[in-house]
């Protein structure tokens, strides 16, 4: 049968009773910005009737995940708040104390408090708290320039998501995180003549199908498997993808650096490396070889608790497959020794000649982009030689003196200047002690940090914020537990269907696809976009705001579109690609100066990292036993025998989002902890029973899922849980404390650069409970099923 499709349709068209708007979606609701192509079907009343995948999208090709399929249930959710609200400071935590107010009054309140507090304590007293996956978090540039504060802040200890991999890539190959090549930037996609599908893909500490980590389209791995790619899984857990793997190394959590050193060792000692590439493009090979030889495969097998033969099998398969790629995941960020593992894994990419080749790992292009859009070459701006993927004009609009006040700068200057954000553990210290100075005003901008979606020792953060903030306001679509606990003013955010936006996606910060979020409906109530809200503040502040942008569209054009296109032009395209080149180190495209080679001090891939050396750190990789592991610490094992990991993604939710969308909640109604059958028997826990996990830092309750997918001795707990159906007022705060797994993750365990944290390698004990916290889905449906 032949079916109709919408290929070639314009960005907006009529179909029967509907106006269809094609869009590339990113936030709200939050997501890793894959910018999936969607068609939004708008009825004659201007309401979204339904959503489906847009087959015009060059990568997702009509496919769409449950969260955007249920977008309508998020937009018209009866618990969404679409008007500005205010509340007396002494009523913080009281769900009934909110009063509706006008935008004028709300923004007046914010700006007058900002003036009062910054006059008293300095501009730096205002911290803007961001999380991940919301469009607003990337608007830092605009926000910093309007408010002139050096303190963008994120509760995630060690910025243990993506940034450590980015920094490791910078230290080793002088580039952004090198994503696996899934033909994203080629006109013909997988069938483009310049592309070769990888013969083998290594999935290391990552579950891309559910996570779409860093804007990688996870199901591209399935596309490549259908084209013959074999899978190697390095993961303690058997995820679905691992069941389709040739070989899996179920490493003990936190030991990846030992495994990665052994990989490099085998590649070198069995002469499986690309001699030409090493000779011409690598630096420090001899020193690196000496170092990794200290980690024999046998020793790694012992440390990681896997069969040594499987290590040989995996490495030989990877190193003899041409091309082959390695996808590195969050697990390496959430391990204080993770950057050393990354150094070795990226070395493996280089040693095997898989760096920047078709079907290998792509290195970010630093040259002037060639966008695959007819007629754009003439419009390219001259000032487009930024080394960073997004412009940092806002940060540099502040004086050096002000930038140096960024919290954490004294201890972690490299972190603060590279990431242009304050250091989380240092910020917690400042909130608790007023050192180095008081943080008296906060903006909960795109985070729900009190519900175990980021902040290690969550309750400490909550107490510190409550103690320190004289005034706090929040922007979101919903009153979250964080906003409920802390904020004096609430500003309603519009969803991606209600405003114009631009996302940059695929291959993470080295994005090669630009998508346009086309406004399809008028905002509900008085909701506004992050950009409109910042523009409103700029207007209110007046001359005091040295905004580098003139308004939302100016921001989109100068920042997101890098001055190369007008918004009006690209909205009709919905999506366009940046042309991808391979072997760019030979083309002079990896360095802003146009010289051949890599953007490192030596111009080569630095197996021996001169940047680590300059920072006073070990220039070569090394293994450190996880500081909190029960395995190596009998005193821990006695009390807390289990390794606790958290942070794995689900298809139903993005971090703390979507618990109030019944059709998604139904896919995963309760917070789960995976326990192996042997451990469940040992602890007296049955499948479906509620349990408490605890350690010296805190405790949390989960419903046990007894499954052989987790290693014995390890438990894996979900994160981001709150219960919008429950009482919102403090102290319950929508049940935010019940399943707060991050309360068990300690702060103070970053590496010397201030990066990485042990979200995936801490410890706990388990106690079965007689109580039952199962949600009643009929209750969820009756509260949130009837759309407004």
């Amino acid at each position, binding site marked *: 049968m032949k*079916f109709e499709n919408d290929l070639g349709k314009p960005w907006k068209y009529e179909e*029967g009773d509907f106006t269809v708007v094609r869009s590339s979606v990113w936030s709200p609701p939050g997501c890793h910005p894959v910018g999936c192509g969607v068609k939004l079907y708008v009825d004659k009343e201007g309401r979204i009737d339904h*959503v489906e995948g847009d087959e015009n999208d060059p990568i997702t090709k009509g496919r*769409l995940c449950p969260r955007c399929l249920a977008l309508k249930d998020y937009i018209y959710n009866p618990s969404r708040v679409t008007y500005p609200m205010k509340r007396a400071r002494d009523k913080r935590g009281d769900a009934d104390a909110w009063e509706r107010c006008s935008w004028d009054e709300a923004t007046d309140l914010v700006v007058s408090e900002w003036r009062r507090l910054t006059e008293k304590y300095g501009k730096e007293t205002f911290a803007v708290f961001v999380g991940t996956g919301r469009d607003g978090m990337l608007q830092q540039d605009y926000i910093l320039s309007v408010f002139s504060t050096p303190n963008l802040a994120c509760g995630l200890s060690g910025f243990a998501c993506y940034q450590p991999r980015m920094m490791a890539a910078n230290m080793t190959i002088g580039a952004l995180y090198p994503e696996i090549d899934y033909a994203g930037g080629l006109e013909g996609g997988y069938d483009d003549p310049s592309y070769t599908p990888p013969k083998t893909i290594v999935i290391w500490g990552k579950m891309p*199908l559910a996570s779409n980590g860093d804007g990688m389209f996870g199901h591209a791995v399935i596309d490549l498997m259908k084209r013959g790619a074999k899978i190697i899984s390095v993961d303690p857990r*058997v995820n679905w993808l691992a069941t389709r793997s040739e070989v899996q190394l179920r490493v003990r959590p936190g030991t990846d650096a030992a495994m990665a050193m052994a990989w490099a060792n085998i590649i070198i000692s069995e002469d499986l490396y690309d001699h030409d590439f090493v000779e011409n493009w690598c630096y420090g090979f001899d020193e690196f070889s000496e170092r990794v030889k200290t980690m024999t495969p046998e020793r790694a097998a012992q440390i990681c608790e896997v069969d040594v033969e499987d290590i040989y099998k995996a490495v030989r398969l990877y190193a003899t497959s041409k091309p082959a790629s390695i996808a590195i995941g969050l697990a390496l960020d959430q391990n204080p020794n993770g950057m050393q593992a990354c150094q070795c894994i990226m070395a493996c990419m280089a040693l095997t000649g898989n760096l920047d080749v078709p079907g290998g790992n792509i290195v970010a292009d630093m040259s002037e982009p060639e966008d695959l859009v007819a007629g754009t070459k003439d419009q390219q701006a001259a000032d487009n030689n930024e080394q960073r993927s997004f412009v940092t004009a806002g940060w540099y609009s502040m004086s050096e003196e002000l930038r140096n006040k960024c919290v954490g700068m004294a201890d972690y200057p490299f972190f603060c200047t590279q990431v242009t954000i304050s250091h989380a553990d240092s910020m917690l210290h400042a909130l608790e002690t007023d050192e180095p100075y008081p943080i008296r005003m906060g903006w909960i901008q795109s985070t729900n940090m009190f519900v175990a979606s980021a902040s290690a020792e969550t309750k400490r953060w909550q107490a510190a914020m409550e103690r320190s903030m004289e005034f706090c306001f929040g922007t979101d679509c919903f009153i979250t537990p964080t906003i409920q606990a802390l904020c004096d003013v609430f500003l309603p955010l519009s969803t991606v269907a209600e405003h114009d936006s631009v996302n940059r996606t695929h291959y993470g910060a080295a994005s090669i696809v630009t998508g346009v979020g086309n406004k399809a409906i008028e905002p509900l109530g008085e909701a506004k976009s992050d950009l409109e809200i910042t523009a409103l503040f700029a207007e209110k502040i007046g001359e005091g705001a040295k905004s580098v942008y003139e308004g939302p569209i100016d921001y989109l054009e100068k920042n997101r579109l890098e001055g190369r296109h007008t918004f009006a032009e690209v909205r009709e395209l919905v999506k366009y690609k940046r042309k991808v080149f391979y072997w760019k180190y030979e083309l002079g495209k990896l360095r802003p100066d146009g010289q051949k080679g890599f953007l490192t001090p030596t111009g080569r891939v630095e197996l021996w990292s001169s940047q680590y050396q300059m920072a006073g750190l070990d220039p070569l990789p090394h293994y450190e036993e996880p500081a909190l592991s029960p395995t190596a610490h009998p005193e821990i094992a006695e009390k807390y025998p289990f390794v606790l990991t958290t942070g794995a993604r689900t298809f139903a939710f993005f971090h703390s989002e979507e618990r109030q969308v019944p*059709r998604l909640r139904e896919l995963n109604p309760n917070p789960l902890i995976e326990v192996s059958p042997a451990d469940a028997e040992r602890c007296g826990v049955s499948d479906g029973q509620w349990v408490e996990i605890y350690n010296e830092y805190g405790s949390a309750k989960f419903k046990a899922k007894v499954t052989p997918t987790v290693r014995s001795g390890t438990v894996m707990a979900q994160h981001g849980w709150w219960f919008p159906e429950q009482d919102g007022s403090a102290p319950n705060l929508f049940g935010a404390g019940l399943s707060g797994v991050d309360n068990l993750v300690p702060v103070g365990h970053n590496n010397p650069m201030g990066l990485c944290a042990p979200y995936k390698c801490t410890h706990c004990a388990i106690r079965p409970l007689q109580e039952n916290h199962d949600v009643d889905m009929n209750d969820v449906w009756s509260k949130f099923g009837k759309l407004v």
Partner: protein
Amino acid sequence: MPKYALLIDYEYCTGCQSCEVACKEEHDFPVGKWGIRVLDDGPWQKDDANDQGSSFNWNKIAVPTDLCDLCARRLENNREPACVHNCLAACMRFGTIEEMAAELAKKPKQVMWAPTE
């Protein structure tokens, strides 16, 4: 006599549940009602030699329910069913029984359903 069939390649079904949610949205099914369900066969160990992923049987199999009408409304407009259109792994197909049977013969680990007359 049934005329149409869904063909599902469960070698590649990742269990993303897009089919379930797409179906619920298309038919406006409330919580507790489904037009298609992704059933989980596994994970259980099929090979005790080791505990790697490849030793596990774990197949996600989408099964249309009694409420499946093969998206009759979409079919009227010559559109494929919502579950097939949005499938993230692109492992679902729809067509006449004859067409799908011919596809079924091309590779193993597929299942064909004919939910309605």
